[in-house]
C-alpha cells in the first residue's frame, strides 16, 4: 500500500501549540481520539489488576480443601465481581481503547466521528465501576449470583446491592453502545480517499462487525437487568413461576446477549493477530477475503447458538439438536481463521519479537479453547462438562490466552507508535515466558479437575481435587505476579525510557498507522492521505 501524506508533516511543526489543554482538564474534557484511547487503555489495565486481585482471593481460598480465608458468601461475591470486572472492565474497554487509538490512524481519519460522545462514553465507565465496586463495602456485600446472575437467585434471593448492580450494568451498556456507534460512523464515513472496503485492515473489519454485535445485544442486556430490577423491587414476575413467569426465560434472554458477547471479546483480537502475523512473517495475510467472510459468519452464527449454555435446563430435544448443530458449525469459520494464519506464516521470513510471540501463543492456546468449546457442544458429553471446572478452563483459554493475550500483543505492537519509544525487548520476553508457563499451570489442570467432577463456583472441594488445586493456585499467583512485569514495561514506555522508535517501527509493518511519526502527533491526518 503506498501512501502519500500531506498535512500531517506540516502539523508536526507546531506540535507544541496544538491547543491541547494542560493538566487534568486535558483528560476530563478531551475529545482527542488518542487521549481517549489512552484513558480507556489505562482504565482497562487498572481493572485487570483489580479483577486479578479478586481472582487471587479465589485461588487462595481454593489452595487447600476447607475454608481458610473467606466466608462462602464472600467467595461468591469474589467470583461474581471478578467475572464482571474482567469482562466489562478489562477486556471490552481495552478493545475500545485500541479502536480509539488505531482505527483513525489505520483508515486515515483525523479523529473519531463523534468526539464528544467519545469523551462521554469513556467517563461513564469509571462511574459504572465505582458503583459496582462500592457494593463490596456495603452491608450484605456485592452481587453474589455469578456474572450470569441467574434469576431467582439474583432477584428474590439477592441482597440490596442488586439495585446498584443493575444501575452499573446500565451505565456500562450505554457506554458500549455509544462507543460502538462511534466506531461504525467513523469507519463508514471517514475512510481516506482510496481506502476501499476491501483495503481495510482486518482490525478495522473485525471491529466494525463487533460494533454491530454490540448495538444488537447490549439493549438485550439492558432489558434483562431491568426485568431483574422490577422483579426484585416492583413486584413483577418475569422470572418467578409463582406469578406466571419462568426462571429459564431469564437464561434465554441473558444468553441471547451473552453468546454474542463472547464474540465481542474475541473478534477484535482476531483482527489484532491478523495484523501482527503478516508484519513479523514479512508476507501478506493469507486469504484476506475469506478472513472477512469468516468473521461475518461467526458474527451471524453467534446469534443462533445461545442455547448451548442451557443444555441442562430441560429444553425439548429438537431445540437441543438445533443448538448443538449450530454451535458445531461455528467451528468451521473459526478453523478457517486459524488455517489462514498458519498459511500466512508458511514460507514467510519470520522473526520473533514479543508481539509475534504473544500472537503465536494466541493461535495455539485459543485453538485449545476452541477444541474444548467443540467438545462442550456435544450435548451428551456436555451434561458431564456443564458447570464444572472444564468450562472454567475453556473460557479462560479463550478469554485469557485469547482475548487478553491478543490485547497484550497489541500493546507491545503499537506502544512504540503511542509513546515514541521501544519497549524493553528483554523484559518483555521474560514477561512472555513467565506468562506462558504460569497461565498453563493455572488453567490447564482445570480441564482435569472438571472432568473428574469438580463443579465451578465452589469455595471448597472434595479431597481428591486437592493436589491439582494447590498446583493451579501456585500457577495463578505466578501469573498475577508476571503481569507486574507488563506494568513495568508499559510504565517505562510511558515515561519515555527506552530506545527511540522509528516511524515504521517494524521492518515488515504495512499500513497507514506506520506512515505518521512516532510518537504519533496529537493531530494526525488533518488532510486525508491518499491510498493508492
Amino acid at each position, binding site marked *: 500500500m503506498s501512501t502519500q501524506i500531506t498535512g500531517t508533516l506540516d502539523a508536526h511543526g507546531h506540535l507544541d501549540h496544538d491547543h491541547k489543554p494542560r493538566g487534568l482538564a486535558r483528560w476530563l474534557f478531551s475529545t482527542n481520539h488518542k487521549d481517549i484511547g489512552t484513558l480507556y487503555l489505562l482504565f482497562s489495565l487498572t481493572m485487570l489488576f483489580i479483577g486479578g486481585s479478586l481472582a487471587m482471593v479465589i485461588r487462595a481460598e481454593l489452595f487447600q480443601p476447607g475454608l481458610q480465608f473467606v466466608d462462602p458468601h464472600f467467595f461468591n461475591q469474589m467470583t461474581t465481581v471478578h467475572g464482571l470486572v474482567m469482562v466489562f472492565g478489562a477486556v471490552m474497554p481495552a478493545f475500545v481503547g485500541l479502536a480509539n487509538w488505531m482505527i483513525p490512524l489505520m483508515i486515515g481519519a483525523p479523529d473519531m466521528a463523534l468526539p464528544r460522545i467519545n469523551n462521554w462514553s469513556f467517563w461513564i465507565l469509571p462511574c459504572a465501576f465505582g458503583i459496582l465496586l462500592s457494593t463490596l463495602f456495603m452491608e450484605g456485600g456485592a452481587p453474589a449470583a455469578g456474572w450470569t446472575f441467574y434469576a431467582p437467585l439474583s432477584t428474590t434471593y439477592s441482597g440490596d446491592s442488586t439495585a446498584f448492580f443493575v444501575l452499573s450494568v446500565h451505565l456500562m451498556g450505554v457506554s458500549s453502545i455509544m462507543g460502538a456507534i462511534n466506531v461504525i460512523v467513523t469507519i463508514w464515513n471517514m475512510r481516506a480517499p482510496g481506502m476501499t472496503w476491501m483495503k481495510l485492515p482486518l482490525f478495522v473489519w473485525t471491529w466494525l462487525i463487533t460494533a454491530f454485535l454490540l448495538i444488537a445485544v447490549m439493549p438485550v442486556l439492558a432489558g434483562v437487568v431491568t426485568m431483574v430490577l422490577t422483579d426484585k423491587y416492583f413486584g413483577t414476575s418475569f422470572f418467578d413461576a409463582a406469578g406466571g413467569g419462568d426462571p429459564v426465560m431469564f437464561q434465554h434472554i441473558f444468553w441471547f446477549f451473552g453468546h454474542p458477547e463472547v464474540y465481542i471479546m474475541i473478534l477484535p483480537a482476531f483482527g489484532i493477530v491478523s495484523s501482527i502475523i503478516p508484519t513479523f512473517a514479512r*508476507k501478506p495475510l493469507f486469504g484476506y477475503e475469506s478472513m472477512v467472510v469468516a468473521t461475518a459468519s461467526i458474527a451471524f452464527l453467534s446469534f443462533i447458538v445461545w442455547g448451548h449454555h442451557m443444555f441442562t435446563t430441560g429444553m425439548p430435544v429438537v431445540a437441543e439438536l438445533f443448538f448443538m448443530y449450530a454451535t458445531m458449525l461455528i467451528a468451521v469459520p473459526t478453523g478457517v481463521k486459524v488455517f489462514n494464519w498458519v498459511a500466512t*506464516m508458511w*514460507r514467510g*521470513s519470520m522473526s520473533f519479537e514479543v508481539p509475534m510471540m504473544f500472537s503465536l501463543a494466541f*493461535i495455539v492456546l485459543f485453538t485449545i479453547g476452541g477444541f474444548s468449546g467443540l467438545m462442550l457442544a456435544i450435548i451428551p458429553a456436555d451434561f458431564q462438562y456443564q458447570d464444572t471446572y472444564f468450562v472454567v478452563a475453556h473460557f479462560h483459554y479463550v478469554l485469557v490466552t485469547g482475548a487478553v493475550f491478543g490485547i497484550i500483543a497489541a500493546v507491545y505492537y503499537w506502544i512504540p507508535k503511542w509513546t515514541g519509544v521501544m519497549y524493553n525487548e528483554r523484559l518483555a520476553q521474560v514477561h512472555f515466558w513467565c506468562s506462558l508457563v504460569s497461565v498453563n499451570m493455572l488453567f490447564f489442570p482445570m480441564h482435569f479437575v472438571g472432568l473428574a467432577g469438580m463443579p465451578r463456583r465452589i469455595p471448597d472441594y472434595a479431597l481428591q481435587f486437592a493436589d491439582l488445586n494447590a498446583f493451579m493456585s501456585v500457577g495463578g499467583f505466578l501469573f498475577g505476579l508476571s503481569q507486574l512485569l507488563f506494568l513495568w514495561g508499559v510504565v517505562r514506555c510511558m515515561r519515555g525510557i527506552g530506545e527511540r522508535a522509528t516511524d515504521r517501527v517494524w521492518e515488515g509493518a504495512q499500513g497507514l498507522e506506520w506512515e505518521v511519526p512516532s510518537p504519533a502527533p496529537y493531530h494526525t491526518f488533518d488532510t486525508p492521505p491518499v491510498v493508492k
Partner: protein
Amino acid sequence: MRHRSSGLRQAKTYLNHPLAAAPLLAASFPAGAQETRFNMTRGATELSQQVFDLHMTIFYICVAIALVVFSLMFWSIVHHRKAKGVVPAQFHGSMKIEILWTAIPVLILVAMAVPATRTLIAMEDTSASELTVLVTGSQWKWHYKYLDYPIEFYSVLATPRAQIANEAEKSPDYLMAVDKPLVLPTGKKVRFLLTADDVIHSWWVPDFAIKKDAVPGFINETWARIDKPGLYYGKCAELCGRDHGFMPVAVDVKTPADFEAWAAQQVALAEQAKAEAASAGPMTMDELMALGQQVYDSACVACHQASGEGLPGVFPALKGSAIATGEPGAHIHIVLFGKAGTAMQAFAKQLGVKELAAVITYERNAWGNAKGDMVQPADIVAAIEKGE
C-alpha cells in the same frame, strides 16, 4: 472389574462394611483413583459408558487435528525464519485451499454429530420407567419422594462443620457424604422428576451421566438404569447461594431384593416416628438445649451462623433478635411456616416435632438470649394443627 469406578467411591463402599480396615482403604485408593482424578468417569450405566466413549472420540479427533495444524505451524516456525535468511514468498490466497479447509471440517463435524444425536435421543427418552423419584432442591439440601412408595426424606451434607473449618481432620468422604442417601434398585429404569423450592439447583451424578436443572415452578425429567450396586456421589451443579458447594448428592444402589427390604423398613420406621411424635411428652431444659444445638448446627447454621449473628444484610441475626427474644408464638410461626419470598424456609415438614421444639428453645436461650422459657413438642403439635 468391568465398570471401573472412582477411587473414592470404592473407598466409601469399603467404609460401609463394618469390617472396613484402614490399610485396605489406603491400598485401594491409588489404583482406582487414577482414572477419575484426570478424566471423566465411565460411570455405572450403559449411557454413561456411551457418553464416556463419545467424549474420548471427540477428544482424539481434536488431538489429531491439533497435531496436524500445530506441526505445520511449528515446522514453519523452525524453517521459515528470517534468521535463516529466508526470503518471504508473496502468495496471499487460494480459493481451492479455502474451499478444501471449509469442506473437510464440515465432514468431520457430521461424523461427530451422528453418534452424539443418537446418544442424546436415548438419554431424553423417559418412557416405560419402572420407578419414579421426585427430586426437589432447596437451599442447600435435596428432598427425595418416591412416587411408588410412601417414602420421602431430606438429604443433607453429613460432613461436620468442624472439618470444613479445619478444626478436625477431614474424612475421606469430605463434602461427599450425606446423612441419608437416595436409595435405588439396580437394573430398573428409574425416572427422576426434578424441581426446586427456591432458586435453581442442578442434580448431578457423574456415574449416571445425569445432570439436570431443578427449576422452581417447573418439572424436568431424566432417567437412569444402574447396572451395579454401590454408593455413587454427585453434587449440586448450579450456583444456588452461599452453600452451593456444600450440597452433595449420594445414591446408594442396592439389588432389587435389598431395595424392597429397605423400603419396607422405611415405611415401618415412618409409622413408628409418627406414633412417637403424637405421644411425645414434655422434655427437660437440658434435653431441649442439647437436641436443639444439634438441630441448629445441621439445619440453621448455614444461614444464621454458629454465633447466631447471621450475615449482616443477607441473613438476620437471631442473637438478640426481636422474634427470638419476643413471645414464643411468632418465633414458632416463622420456623414452622417460613417466610414467603425470602430464604427462610418452612421447617414444619422438614423436622420432627421434638426437633422443632428443641431448636426454637435453643434459639431463645443461646448466645445470651436468656429468655429462660421452653417450647415443648405439644406447643408445636398445637401450632401445626392451627395451621398458617
